């Protein structure tokens, strides 16, 4: 008996110690949710159509090159809509060669002959849904990298809803919504393109001549720093894109003492960059961010693997641009569907009053239990305290976030925990009234009440698991705290409580129980 008690005591002490260790210091370990701490909540729709557009553009480009290589003559490749290309004027004698070329190199496309040298290519439905999934997954990954760099603790970035193209972003404790939105939503597609001409209007740029093939007109800021619209005629194929970057960081332009962003290139891009810059010394190289020319420095000498992006950046803007470049471009644009900010002060207000209220409530419960059950009440209070300790320790261990719904879970745990003790104590009283000695009464009560507590806790646990499975956000928060609480409750109410009784009664002949 004594030996038995000793290992039980050791187990309980070990659990207690582990719990204290795991959640100390509490301010660092317990994460507060958006509703308590304040922060930003965004739901965004990924415009997966963008990715389809990009795929279509790319296919159009590659198809043109392949047809040239195979010497299949054609008039034009037009984009009908996203995921649909029309090729016109294909040489009639090359029909089968055309079909073979498309079928071998463009597996995701369905090829349809429209007659008279006209062909239609359509992106397959199956490929579309794969593309959609990949786009969303990639967008989540990109956003995650960007948010990580902001240093937000415990961000939530996850697919959302049933439509398969929504993303939920939660940034607890972050209150600069404009900055967060800018950082998350900017596509950050970086391209370095050679400049062929520039001017204040498109007319001035072209001077009545037709636009040269392989070029594109982009707007941007004038080098003089004016605010007027300014246009650049740039080559369609970029020298460098965001994918070629190895790293990007905020730095300082030592001449003007203004913040800028410097980047380094991956080795294979570096040699290409060196070749291109050497061949084009004296020409302008436009730095294009999201189809907007940020700056267009003149190439002074061959550049190997480093470059700088200057612009009228503030320190923060430069910082954010570096983050965006490091994390890569978003595969598609994002559209905000829902946004919500909780001011940290409002959150702090409600948590302060919530904590005060909970403590007052808990104190009332403790006082009553001590008053009503006397010494046995001490037992209940110890069990209750340990229950709460295990609960918070587990929350800290799983880095769960405490939210208002989570607090509902804690209150329910305390309620059910107190209930377990009340059940046992009332049963002990009943048994003693029927004439049993304290020891046999305790033993009988725990035996009988075990299945009640087991069934009650397990029913709620089953419900909690289902809630976690099918619920979102607050419902899940409730389910997590409740599940942990119910399990720890079974341990404290049945095992710890029983141990305390046994420990107090061990080796003594007790006539009455303070209950």
């Amino acid at each position, binding site marked *: 008996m004594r030996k038995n008690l000793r290992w039980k005591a050791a187990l309980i002490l070990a659990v207690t110690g582990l719990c204290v260790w795991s959640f100390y210091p509490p301010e660092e370990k317990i994460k507060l949710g958006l509703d308590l701490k304040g922060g930003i909540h965004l739901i965004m729709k990924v415009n997966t159509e963008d990715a389809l557009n990009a795929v279509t553009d790319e296919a159009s480009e590659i198809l043109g090159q392949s047809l040239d290589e195979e010497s299949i003559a054609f008039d034009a490749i037009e984009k009908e809509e996203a995921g649909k290309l029309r090729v016109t004027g294909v040489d009639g004698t090359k029909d089968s060669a055309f079909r073979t070329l498309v079928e071998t190199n463009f597996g995701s496309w369905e090829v349809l002959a429209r007659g008279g040298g006209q062909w239609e290519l359509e992106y397959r439905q199956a490929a579309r849904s794969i593309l959609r999934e990949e786009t969303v997954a990639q967008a989540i990954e990109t956003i995650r990298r960007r948010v990580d760099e902001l240093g937000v603790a415990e961000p939530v970035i996850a697919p959302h809803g049933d439509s398969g193209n929504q993303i939920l972003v939660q940034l607890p404790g972050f209150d600069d919504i404009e900055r967060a939105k800018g950082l998350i939503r900017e596509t950050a597609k970086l391209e370095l393109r050679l400049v062929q001409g520039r001017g204040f209007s498109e007319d001035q740029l072209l001077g009545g001549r037709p636009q040269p093939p392989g070029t594109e007109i982009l707007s941007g800021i004038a080098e003089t720093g004016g605010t007027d619209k300014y246009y650049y005629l740039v080559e369609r194929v970029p020298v460098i894109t965001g994918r070629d970057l190895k790293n990007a960081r905020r730095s300082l332009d030592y001449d003007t003492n203004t913040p800028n962003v410097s980047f380094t290139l991956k080795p294979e891009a570096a040699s290409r960059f060196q070749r291109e810059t050497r061949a084009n010394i004296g020409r302008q190289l436009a730095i294009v961010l999201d189809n907007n020319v940020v700056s267009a420095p003149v190439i002074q000498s061959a550049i190997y693997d480093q470059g700088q992006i200057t612009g009228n950046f503030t320190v923060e803007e430069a910082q954010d641009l570096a983050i965006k470049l490091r994390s890569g471009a978003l595969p598609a644009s994002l559209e905000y569907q829902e946004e919500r900010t909780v001011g940290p002060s409002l959150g702090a*207000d409600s948590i302060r009053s919530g904590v005060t209220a909970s403590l007052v409530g808990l104190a009332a419960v403790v006082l009553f239990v001590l008053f*009503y059950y006397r010494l046995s009440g001490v037992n209940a209070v110890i069990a209750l305290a340990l229950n709460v300790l295990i609960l918070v320790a587990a929350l800290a261990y799983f880095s769960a976030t405490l939210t208002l719904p989570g607090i509902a*879970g804690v*209150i329910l745990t305390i309620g059910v925990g107190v209930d377990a003790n009340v059940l046992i104590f*009332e049963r002990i009283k009943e048994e003693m009234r029927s004439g049993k000695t304290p020891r046999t009464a305790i033993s009988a009560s725990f035996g009988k009440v075990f299945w009640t507590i087991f069934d*009650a806790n397990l029913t709620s646990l089953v419900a909690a698991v289902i809630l976690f499975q099918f619920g979102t956000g607050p419902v899940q928060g409730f389910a997590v705290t409740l599940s942990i609480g119910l399990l720890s409750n079974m341990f404290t109410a049945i095992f710890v409580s029983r141990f305390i009784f046994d420990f107090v009664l061990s080796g003594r002949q007790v006539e009455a129980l303070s209950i």
Partner: protein
Amino acid sequence: MDFIGDTSIDWLKYRWYFIAFSLIVASIGVLDIARKGGLRYGIDFSEGTIVYPRFEKTPQIEEIRRVLSNAGIGEAVIQRYDREEMNLVMIRVERRGDDTVELDATATRILDALRNNLPDNELVDVSTEIVGPVVGETLRRQARNATLFAMGAMLLYIGFRFEPIYGVGATVAVFHDVVLTLGLVSVFNHEISLNIIAAFLFLVGYSVNDTIVIFDRVRENRQLARRTSLREIMNLSINQTLRRTILTSGLTFFAVVALYALGGEVLRGFSFVLVTGIIIGTYSSIAIASPIVLWWRRYRDRPASQRRKAKTKPEERAARV
């Protein structure tokens, strides 16, 4: 120490009063919801536009209301939002059209009206919240489905651990609690927010815990006294656990009343559901769950007892009820 002595109340005798009482409370709630045109959903679920303009100086709510109704946005809910600075106001307009485009336009209209008509009090900061129809509806559906699935799982578990009808009794009691509390939420003009959903989950958990304690006692007593009628066993079990029921509910009640009284405005609706949930959850375990089980037993056993009429002795038959 005992506050409450042993009781021998014939609870099941009053079951018709309980049912009538529940029906009345439920009807009041349902009628109130119908009268108000459905439950009032809070910011989390409302489909609409919310604008938070922060003014340079403390604005007059009446003035903002006048400006907005002149601009044709008379149905807006206007509240002061920030307690410390007093310059932040919340303006909420429920969705009327079908698309999000209109929601965006509403925000612009509100801001234009404020900028143009309150020249001596400039807007220093503005944030808007726009909740599209899809988002609000998805949240609502998910919360509802999760709760229904969870209740289904409880039904199965209790049905498996006790008998199927006990699962039904407990689940109906929980459903009863949810309906009554929803009605009261409407009567007392609380909004359904995400936090209130969590409070409802608390209610479900609490109610079922209470019911199981009584059912468990019934299970135990039935093994001890096989000859006693189910009705007597139920009354006995309720009375035996009554002290525990009152103590537990009372203690939990203490804690949540403190939350209601001291928790502040943000927690008001949340703790309201906790408080009413404890009362109704405790009541339904006694007044709804047990009568259902008893009814089913009587219904199921009736044909059998009639068939056995000839063979069974009268006193035995009486004892079965």
